[in-house]
């Protein structure tokens, strides 16, 4: 199957999808239309990086540096996790914007 996500794509949580603390169960959840998904620490760490500005590649680099892990492995983990959420329309993608003007 075609990969749904590429290094230049900027992943983000669209309207109607949000990270939340489940205060009763003491867990982190992703709330989405008709879905509430329990997150483990890795899932929470990945989704907390989605700021709508940084690309897959940039997020991979940041997490690899923070956790001192090989970036190929981190990239694979993020891609697999986000692909499942993209298929469920809980994560959206936008292309990296290239500045039209050459700024210093």
């Amino acid at each position, binding site marked *: *199957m075609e990969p*749904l996500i590429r290094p230049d794509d900027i992943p983000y949580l*669209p*309207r*109607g*999808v*949000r990270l*939340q603390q*489940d*205060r*009763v*169960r003491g867990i982190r*959840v992703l*709330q*989405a*239309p*008709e879905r*509430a998904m329990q997150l483990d620490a890795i899932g929470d760490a990945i989704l907390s990086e989605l700021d709508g500005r940084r690309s897959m590649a940039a997020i991979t680099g940041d997490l690899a540096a923070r956790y001192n892990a090989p970036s190929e492995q981190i990239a694979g983990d993020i891609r697999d996790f986000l692909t499942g959420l*993209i*298929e*469920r*329309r809980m994560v959206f993608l936008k292309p990296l914007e290239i500045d039209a003007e050459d700024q210093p």
Partner: protein
Amino acid sequence: MKDLPTQPRDLDGNPVTPGLPMAMLAEITHRCPLACPYCSNPVELTRAAEELPAEDWARIFREAADLGVLQVHISGGEPGARRDLAQIVASARDAGLYVNLITSGIGITRARLEELDQAGVDHVQLSLQGIRPDMADRISGHPGSWDKKMGFAGWVAEIGFPLTINAVVHRQNMERLPDMIALAETLGARRIEVATVQFHGWADLNRKALMPTREQAVFARQVVNDARTRLRGKLVIDYVPADHHAVYPKACMGGWGSTGLNVGPDGSVLPCHAAGSITWMRFENARDRSLSDIWHLSESFNAFRGTEWMPEPCQSCDRKTLDFGGCRCQAMAIAGDARATDPVCSKSPLHAQVVARAEADAATDTTADTAELIYRRMKKTRELQG
């Protein structure tokens, strides 16, 4: 008012261990401009005068959030029939709940939809009764419904709500399922729920007109499978198949009293929206008791928890923790016994009879133009008195 038991026990007295609910269906009114002949509301509808005030809903939402509920589905009837809908929505958001609004789209103006946006609706689920005006208006019993729904869908997109299309399929429209999925795409929906009519209440009164044929059930399954592949990452398709044509029953509520609860317009709290059809069961009311007590200790919620209550062939079946013996209301309706194996299960002694009846209903000569439908309407006061 009778005291609740002090320990959670099933209907045979076996100890059970309640979990925590994730979702609550809040049917805030039974009033509705539509008259769909498969409506999931009970045949005995609750009247406006018996509806809970908004302040009670606010308290119930806080109790639900404290109990572990994460999402509330605000539904009806048509929730827009309540003038204080925005206030009710805002109180659910204040309680920390994720708010799904389940609507027919009729009677909610653009200005009101903006008000609901401000109040904090997270997601809109719009029901469609057909893919063109003729079918939509005929099934909903509401002339002009199609045009109003298309207008509403446009406002949803403009405001930016995530949209789910809610499509109920049955013998009269199953061939149009590919068009319904295409329409959901056109409307910019993220999800479509394709649900085969469940034959409780109103739908059961219309079995002969609505029961799909076996060929239709096979066709719908194929359409859904193909569309899921084609629309991967574009449109999510949730599908409730025709269980009268299946080998095993559906997992009723993901297990009775396990993940969800339903609060009716008058505050009655049910393990599922159809549970009122189990006529011997006594239901508690959120006016009288806390949701937590009702969830953990009421006889109704504990009746079918766990697996000890199950008779054969469920008790020795390796699927008993997968489908929980199927739907209790269907067992009540067909076997006359709410604890029986769901008669749609191929292991039920009633299965052959169920299949024969479904096939006879499906073979009834009714077309979209001539089928007599019993529409879901509230009884007039005069009829009630007479």
